[in-house]
């Protein structure tokens, strides 16, 4: 059996024939699987170690698609039923956004035919492709750098994590959240009340509102809420000391950040970019950088694998921590 927690939840949401094939994959290889992909009438494939492999009926990982298991139309229909626990109505909002979070924090991305109403996506039908993403909870990735996020007066610096996609920014953000929420003994930091606005259910991986990832004991998660509203809502309702949110970039987000900072609440967030120069090209983000809202910038890359911390800068772009550094162990 796979040592990953709640792995059965993932298996249960695969259609029976696919489930059989996946369950037969040898354990060592199954542990490395990052994605399982189902496409109607196409071979079943998995991604592991940044490489695509096809899966045969017997659970062998092969490079040639010809002898792979072919995903049928029925499999695709069944998959939606199983993912939603035969309750598609309960996941309307998620389906509209193109992904469903399973118990255990696994996320399934879906594509199909969009049904539009007044120009907005009403729902997806004839779902033809599934991407089961196996999230990794890596505890301790923030261990080495967290001390740089704390002010001499045991407060938190406003922090922006800058990272290209797939470089582990959400993992890092989650780990920082967990540490700040639980408190850090060796730094003498008491746990902070943390409010997480988890618009895409990625940080806490909520299923039915319950976080499936460890985000700490003093963390309140507002799941599936648009960031701009969520940040203000949290301040009014939960009196957080730190607000954590993912992937800012819209004009509303920046406005909300203005408001958050005016109330004295600290903020930790992420943005898609390669480095600071990249950010300066985006007008909305350029503003908050030149206003020096953030006192810490963490820049990530894949140099030593996903989650490599390249460097950490302060508000004047002076280096506080120099990488490359990659920490943490896979949580089993």
């Amino acid at each position, binding site marked *: 059996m796979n040592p990953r927690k709640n792995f*059965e939840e993932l298996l*249960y949401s695969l*259609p*029976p024939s696919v*489930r059989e094939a996946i369950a037969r994959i040898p354990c060592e290889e199954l542990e490395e699987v990052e994605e399982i992909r189902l496409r109607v009438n196409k071979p079943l494939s998995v991604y592991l170690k940044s490489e695509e492999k096809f899966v045969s009926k017997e659970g062998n990982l092969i490079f040639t698609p010809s002898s792979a298991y072919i995903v049928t139309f029925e499999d695709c229909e*069944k998959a939606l*039923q*199983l993912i*939603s*626990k*035969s*309750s*598609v*109505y*309960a996941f*309307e909002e998620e389906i509209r956004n193109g992904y469903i979070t399973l118990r255990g924090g696994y996320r399934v991305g879906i594509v199909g035919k969009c049904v539009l109403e007044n120009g907005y996506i009403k*729902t997806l039908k004839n779902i033809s492709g599934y991407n089961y993403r196996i999230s990794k909870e890596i505890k301790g990735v923030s261990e080495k750098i967290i001390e740089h996020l704390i002010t001499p007066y045991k407060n938190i610096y406003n922090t922006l994590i800058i990272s290209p996609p797939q470089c582990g920014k959400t993992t890092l953000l989650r780990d920082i959240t967990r540490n700040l929420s639980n408190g850090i003994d060796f730094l003498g930091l008491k746990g902070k009340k943390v409010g997480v606005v988890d618009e895409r259910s990625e940080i806490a991986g909520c299923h039915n509102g319950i976080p499936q990832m460890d985000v700490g004991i003093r963390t309140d998660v507002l799941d599936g809420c648009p960031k701009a509203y969520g940040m203000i809502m949290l301040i009014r309702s939960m009196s957080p000391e730190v607000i954590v949110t993912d992937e800012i970039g819209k004009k509303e987000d920046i406005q909300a950040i203005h408001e958050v900072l005016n109330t004295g609440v600290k903020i930790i967030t992420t943005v898609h970019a390669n480095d600071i120069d990249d950010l300066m090209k985006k007008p909305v983000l350029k503003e908050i950088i030149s206003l020096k809202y953030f006192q810490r910038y963490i820049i990530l890359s894949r140099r030593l694998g996903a989650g490599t911390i390249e460097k950490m800068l302060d508000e004047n772009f002076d280096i506080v921590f120099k990488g490359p550094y990659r920490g943490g162990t896979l949580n089993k």
Partner: protein
Amino acid sequence: MKLLGMLLVFFSTTSLGYMAAFKYKMRFRILKNLISALNLCKIEVTYSKDPMAEIFITISSSLDKSIKPLFIKAAEILLENKGYSGGEAWEAALKEWDSGYLKKEDIEILRSFGYGLGKSDVYSQEKNFDLAVELLKRQLSSAEEENKKNEKLYKNIGVLTGLAIIILFL
């Protein structure tokens, strides 16, 4: 000895009559309870939006014992995670639960209800529930008529046949 025989005959024909009448009564009762159960389900689907299996478990506590096993079985099949869809679980539970009181048309309505179960958004689910309830209501009114007509009839037939046999033997 003769008296005992007469009593036995009378008793058995009467109970046969009552059993025949009971069938009509049960159908009426099951249909009535199914309608209220489906209405309860509908409220849960549109309001709480819990998964189907959980809804079945929640409402089963307030259900009549004539239909409780159907909902519990369907929920159990779903919670086993063997890869059954909502419709398949419902169908299997229906097969196991059906004890012959319902007519073929009644079962057919329930089966086609199961086909759409949990497959779509709230709006369409509501429609699916409404349709099943509407059709079951029609069956209910015919069941009520039949029940009224036949309950007395079969009970009387039972008693009277008994008496007739006894008179013949006297």
